């Protein structure tokens, strides 16, 4: 449900950057979304369709790259991808650690003309 607001903010940045670059059309927007970001790609796609009507990004492709959660084990220091939703080190078996990636919601790049 909060994806509409997030997409609105993505598009605002996208239009700003595209204008700064002297472009008039946006053809592709690439996002990087962590699987622990609390954002659903399907809802982003829906919001994207709804918010780009009659804009420079109408009909553009939304390309969503998923980033796995990676955790650095507090005991052995190994970086591992937890077998969701359980977070135990795949090397030494210790639970938990620090989340290094997986929470990001990033506007990665634009394809414009």
């Amino acid at each position, binding site marked *: 449900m909060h994806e509409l607001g997030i997409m609105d903010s993505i598009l605002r940045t996208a239009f700003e950057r595209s204008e700064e670059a002297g*472009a008039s059309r946006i053809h592709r927007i690439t996002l990087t979304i962590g699987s622990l970001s609390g954002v659903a790609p399907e809802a982003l796609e829906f919001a994207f369709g709804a918010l780009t009507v009659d804009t420079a990004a109408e009909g553009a492709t939304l390309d969503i790259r998923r980033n796995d959660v990676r955790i650095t084990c507090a005991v052995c220091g190994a970086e591992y991808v937890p077998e969701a939703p359980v977070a135990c080190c795949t090397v030494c078996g210790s639970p938990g650690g620090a989340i290094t990636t997986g929470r990001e919601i990033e*506007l990665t790049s634009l394809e414009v003309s």
Partner: protein
Amino acid sequence: MTATRTIEIHEAVLDKNRAIAEQNRALLATSNALAINLMSSPGSGKTSLLERTLTELSEAISIGVIVGDLATDNDGRRLGGRNAQVIQITTGDICHLDASMVGTALASFDPVPNLVFIENVGNMVCPAAFDLGERVRVALLSVTEGEDKPLKYPTLFRTADAVIVTKLDIAEVCEFDAEAARANIVATAPNAVTFWLSVRTGAGMEAWYQWLRDHVGERTAHGDAI
């Protein structure tokens, strides 16, 4: 026709929220205040937990509550008259609190209390994505919700510093499997402190109070300790 070209951006979408959250965190740190973000599904007992906590602790510790709801100020009113500063945020249709809403609420405290509870909008998905500037994130799970909630909503639980299992007095009626719940909490939130309590009977409340006292004490003694 002009050829298409690529612009690399790599900008975090929630950067604005995060920047405001950092301002909130700085304000809280200079005021020696500990802020706790309480998150759970609707009806899991956030307001009841706060009602009793305020009654028991607000003589000894200065407490403030920022309450978020889609509509009504019912929760804010329930928490009134307990010697605490209560600020109600009505979010309209927004399903979570963000850092700027909390920043506005913090600015209206006079003075900023030593312990600030932020009762988030009842929702286990959206609030987990927004840093509010809190120091501690707490997830609540009531026995009526089923022991597999942590597995179904791992984002909320994995980012929690503490998990509180509430309504323990009706666990048996709900056929709540405490062992399964414990295993699921450990699996998703292995670093979290866990409290098992009943606000109604008071069972388990003392451990929660002591944890709050310790953390507030640490903050007032050493500043940014947690």
